[in-house]
């Protein structure tokens, strides 16, 4: 979210300048750099791994750089470095939608194409945003999952990441909207707790939720750290099987809890596919196949063809729902 005041007097950025040539071949030997929110974060390691696969497919040079702590200021410093190195494609997930804008725009002026994935910047600072799913898609999916598990009525709570995680807040807002639908009228979202994407804090917050709302029926945790911590707490407590839990998590983290019955189902998109798609989007930009304008199409290897939507957004697809039946088919 962002508090705003008056009109924005920053220059409207160069949305999709030049002409797209849909038939241009992908240039070989492109320098593709992935700049995640934080290196060594397992989620981004998998996502960037997808990017690496894609880059190798189109014979580019892949590298992953980034700060060891998730802060916007260090990302700026890395973007400056990349621009200094004349990188062709920068694929990044923003720690702050505004803070890295200036640096990204200088990099673009220096010739780089910028793709954001997972977490966007302001639209005028990048060429394309590869969205894992639409926010609406997540909200719908999560509300549906929890409603199924608690039988359509009762109190639920959300366990989120940090209080200022942009996409979390967007999803939670949309979930509130979703809950207003008639079929969910008997479900009440009582509170949002923040586990800061730390195990210990998420643990404590889960305990707190159950303490302060003894009649809580379910918890939705749309963040991988939060849902794993909550599952681990529930599985070792008297609430196991009584309080429902769902959210966004990786199959490897959640396998144990699905098998022991703590969690019936949860969802996630494939992070590797996300990175894969982002790399192809970058290559398409750098090769002149697309400019980032709405309606342009490009091919993303094994994932097939994608179309750029409004505001230069490409959507990966609906999330996968994991449950006892299918979880063993996934390994990430």
């Amino acid at each position, binding site marked *: 979210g962002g*508090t*705003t005041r*008056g009109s924005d007097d920053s220059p409207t950025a160069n949305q999709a300048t030049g002409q797209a040539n849909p038939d241009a071949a992908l240039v070989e030997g492109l320098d593709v750099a992935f700049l995640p929110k934080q290196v*060594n974060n397992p989620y981004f390691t998998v996502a960037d791994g997808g990017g690496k696969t894609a880059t190798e497919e189109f014979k580019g040079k892949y590298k992953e750089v980034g700060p060891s702590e998730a802060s916007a200021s260090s990302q700026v*410093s890395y973007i400056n470095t990349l621009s200094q190195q004349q990188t062709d494609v920068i694929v990044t997930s923003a720690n702050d939608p505004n803070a890295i804008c200036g640096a990204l725009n200088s990099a673009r002026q220096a010739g780089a194409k910028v793709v954001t994935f997972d977490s966007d910047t302001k639209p005028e600072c990048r060429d394309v945003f590869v969205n894992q799913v639409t926010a609406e898609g997540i909200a719908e999916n999560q509300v549906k999952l929890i409603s199924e598990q608690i039988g359509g009525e009762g109190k639920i709570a959300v366990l989120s990441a940090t*209080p200022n995680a942009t996409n979390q807040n967007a999803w939670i807002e949309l979930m509130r909207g979703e809950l207003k639908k008639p079929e969910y009228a008997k479900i009440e979202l009582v509170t949002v707790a923040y586990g800061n994407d730390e195990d210990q804090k998420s643990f404590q917050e889960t305990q707190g939720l159950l303490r302060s709302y003894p009649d809580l029926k379910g918890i939705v945790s749309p963040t991988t750290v939060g849902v794993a911590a909550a599952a681990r707490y529930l599985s070792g407590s008297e609430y196991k099987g009584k309080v429902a839990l769902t959210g966004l998590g990786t199959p490897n983290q959640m396998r144990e809890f699905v098998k022991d019955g703590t969690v019936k189902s949860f969802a996630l998109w494939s992070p590797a596919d996300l990175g894969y798609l982002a790399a192809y989007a970058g290559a398409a930009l750098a090769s002149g196949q697309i400019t980032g304008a709405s309606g342009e199409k490009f091919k993303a290897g094994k994932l097939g063809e994608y179309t750029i939507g409004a505001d230069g957004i490409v959507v990966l697809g609906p999330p996968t729902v994991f449950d006892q039946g299918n979880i063993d088919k996934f390994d990430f």
Partner: protein
Amino acid sequence: MARDVVRSTLARWDTVLLVVLAAVVVVAGVLVEGFASGRNFQFLLLDVVAIALIALPLTLIVITGEIDLSVASTLGLCSAVMGQLWVAGLSLELVVVLVVGLGAVLGAVNAVFVTRFALPSLAVTIGTLAAYRGLAFVVLGDQAVADFPFSWTTAASSTVGGGSVPWAAVVTLVLAVVFGVVLHATPFGRSLYAMGNNAEAATFSGIRVARAKFWLFVVSGAVSGLAGVYWTLRFASARADNAAGLELAVVAAVLLGGVSIFGGRGTLLGVLAGVLLLGAVRNALQLADVAADTLNVVTGGLLIASVVVPNVVGMARTRWRRRQRTA
């Protein structure tokens, strides 16, 4: 006095740092592609400005034997308040003044605990480190204010005559000169070394120890507030978590600069060299695609070396002399 300074080990540490800094710049300029360019120089300076700014008053504080760990949280709270005031419709000129004033007030809170209640500053500022950061979240919550006027945000990274020296670095340098003169050539600065070595003896000499420390904390807060303004404008984003964890980087730079953590020893030149050295090493290694993990190991290693090397050299020298004498 000049001879005196030259002879002291400290001055030698300054020189060592400057030589190492020059060596790093030359080596990186030759070996690392993209290092020796005006643009990179500009990026490097922009990155170290906030650390350098905060390090100035912190140097003086550490010389008196105290420490201020709340600087980055002060920066964050000031940034958050800056965002709220801007949203509330105040003019940015006024906002900047108020925010620097707020920084001074936050510094004064530290000062009151440290000087009036005679509490250890390490403990106090660990407390305010948490408290100020918490208040920043209370003020701005999960929001980010990002619609500062374009003219202001570009000013934060604009350069002198469009060259490669940012205005912010020039301002920092001017402040550094002011702090340097105050520290090394005024009665006030002299008294800081005395109280850092032995506060009781300084009191017995008629030096107003508590008052001096009080003002140092206030100035530290105000400068952190100013750094908050810079940070907010440079990244065009007022956030509660701005510069989280920066305190360790600043303390590391000050210590690398040869300031004794126990007080009473250190020079401002050394600290500036330390700040630039850390910045240059990071920048060069980043350009050479060295991973962030290795960067951290290098930073830690530099810090350890900065205290271990002079000590070990000193010990070895004494031992060698003794052997010579007895032989």
